[in-house]
């Protein structure tokens, strides 16, 4: 993967390829807008899921810690943005102030949760994070009394869009005779951030920290013996994953303009986890592929499963939403059984998941 960024061999070819990719990314929303603005929105959400999946990949893929409450950090980021940029308290801070704040708060939550539990076995961590996700959701749901902080199940509405020096991401402008709609503006913003995040992730994986995580994942005792401060490193993975989630949450808030606790339920955590597992734990590109696949497939299903059933049985037997979840569940099971390293496996992860340890327990 590192070789992908290594342009020393054939610089011209690589640069041409990158230019092609860039052109495709720039043109994509206009093509999609031709089909329907809904598809631009779907793409934006898909990019957001890439973001989340990459954040979770740091925790699950790099450091090997199973986190089942990841969406809680997303929720924290989203609510921080919503509370500081909406009529809820009449506060309207600019997004470049709130996004880091959201990341910071999510990071603090991650460390608070991680500190007591990271010394435990992985499966305990999974359960504790699962519980944590539920706690956050219960609080978001109930913090409307006695003081109205989150507005309870109704959620927060009229959240400010991103604004940069008078340029608002909401509404439509006309550039060169083309309608520059709100989803398209967010698309460009999200894609730029995503590319940045991908670069950060790839660089991180090959850094001293990334190697330390890898060592911990493979054998914690050996890693400690090699002088790695395992506790701090695990905490760092946790905090970093959480802050990615926090930033993604803030962007989600601004993009949707409305959030409620319904968006931060366990199913979402599972979905992000499925993306990481399906794509290939520990492989940045695999995770992006997984996230895009699992974001688009349900949309395609929405347009095919319902009509197909109507055509065959004359009525809808299985709701597309249910079908989607069923597929996710099956995908998790089947991937683990038949291709545990994911669609695009990371070399190391593949070796790890396919080996048979000597001590059968």
């Amino acid at each position, binding site marked *: 993967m590192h070789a992908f960024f290594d342009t020393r061999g054939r610089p011209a070819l690589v640069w041409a390829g990158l230019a092609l990719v860039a052109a495709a990314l720039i043109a994509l929303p206009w093509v999609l807008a031709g089909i329907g603005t809904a598809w631009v929105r779907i793409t934006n959400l898909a990019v957001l899921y890439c973001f989340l999946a990459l954040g979770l990949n740091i925790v*699950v893929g790099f450091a*090997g810690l*199973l986190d*089942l409450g990841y969406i809680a950090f997303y929720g924290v980021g989203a609510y921080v943005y919503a509370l500081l940029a909406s009529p809820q308290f009449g506060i309207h801070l600019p997004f470049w102030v709130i996004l880091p704040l959201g990341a910071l708060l999510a990071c603090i939550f991650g460390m608070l949760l991680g500190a*007591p*539990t990271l*010394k*435990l*076995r*992985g*499966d*305990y*961590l*999974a*359960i*504790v994070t*699962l*519980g*944590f996700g*539920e*706690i956050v959701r*219960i*609080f978001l*749901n*109930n913090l409307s*009394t*006695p003081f109205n902080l989150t507005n309870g199940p109704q959620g927060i509405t009229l959240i400010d869009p991103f604004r940069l020096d008078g340029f608002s991401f909401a509404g439509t402008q006309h550039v060169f005779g083309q309608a520059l709609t709100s989803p398209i503006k967010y698309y460009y913003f999200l894609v730029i951030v995503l590319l940045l995040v991908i670069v950060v992730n790839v660089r991180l994986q090959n850094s001293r920290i990334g190697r330390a995580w890898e060592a911990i994942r493979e054998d*914690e*005792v050996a890693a400690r013996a090699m002088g790695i401060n395992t506790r701090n490193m695990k905490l760092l993975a946790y905090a970093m994953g959480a802050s990615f989630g926090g930033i993604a949450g803030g962007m989600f808030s601004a993009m949707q303009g409305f959030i409620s606790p319904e968006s931060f339920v*366990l199913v979402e955590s*599972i979905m992000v*986890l499925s993306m990481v*597992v399906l794509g290939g*734990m520990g492989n940045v590109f695999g995770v992006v592929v997984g996230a895009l696949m699992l974001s688009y497939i349900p949309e395609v299903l929405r347009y095919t499963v319902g009509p197909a059933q109507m055509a065959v049985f004359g009525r809808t*037997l*299985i709701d597309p939403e*249910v079908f989607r*979840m*069923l597929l*996710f*569940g*099956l*995908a*998790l*099971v089947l*991937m*683990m*059984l038949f291709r*545990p390293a994911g669609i695009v496996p990371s070399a190391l992860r593949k070796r*790890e*998941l396919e080996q*048979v*340890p000597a001590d*059968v*327990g």
Partner: protein
Amino acid sequence: MDTFIQQLVNGVTLGSVYAIVALGYTMVYGIIQLINFAHGDVVMIGAMVAYSVIAVLVGAHVSLPPLAIVVIATLFAIPVCMAVGYALERVAYRPLRNAPRLAPLITAIGLSIVLENIALIIWGRAPLPYPQIIETVTYRLTSHPDGATITNVQVAIIGISIVMMAGLLVLIYRTKIGVAMRATAQNAQVAGLMGIDVNRVISITFIIGSGLAAVAGVMDGSYYGVAHYQMGFILGLKAFTAAVLGGIGNLGGAMLGGLLLGVIESLGAGYVGEFTNLCHLSGWSHALALRCVSDPHLALFGSNYQDVFAFVVLILVLVFRPSGLLGERVSDRA
């Protein structure tokens, strides 16, 4: 005092259900060190199957006493759950027994989703009202006219739980298969060398746990009066908490943990409003005092936070005594 006794009774009832579900977690964990995430959903399947059987029997106007109908429904749900439990182990866990720990854990989550959605397809999204065919009889526990009470359903739940736990202990400590299970839990490889069919023992463990889960599902459904395709998730989480509280892998621990957790939750939900009542602080804030005039029960946290207690307990246990109350040290590497 009456409130306290009432919450205690409710807590013990709830705790009995938790304990039965926790036994399923703890037995499986003790033998193959796997958290069977789908166990809560097996409980749900049990509740749903029993619901359908009761509904069919009641709908057909069978002239059976209500108690017999519930018993028949339960006897129907048990083999179904056992089959589900066996299938889970056979299809999804056994091939991964030697895989790294993350793999079976992710499979378990996947299975949990699959079971939930199958239930959603069969029984629908709406919560099903559990038929209250057994007439509820309320017994007064104290002399106070509005005092603490216990219902016949609660008595039955507690009684059946005790019988099942006793039966399980006899099975584990007094029978040949029990010896085999304990041996496998200690060291599967050596147990295999001693002529124990380890695969069979593991299957039987899943089957027993799932059978218990079926009964727990019926109890939970009858107690709360509803069954829902997602009921297994939160119940499973709490039962797991109970198992950890008692010391995972330890049968006595699961029972103790279940009861304790039920009582903690009940008392917590009953008293949290009182403890976090903001009206004690009326002297500090005029605005607060004004609100307390209209609402003297103004509290920071109400009983709607009931589900939080289990997780707080879980985190506290893991921080201060990861081995649980009766367990051995388990905080080694994943």
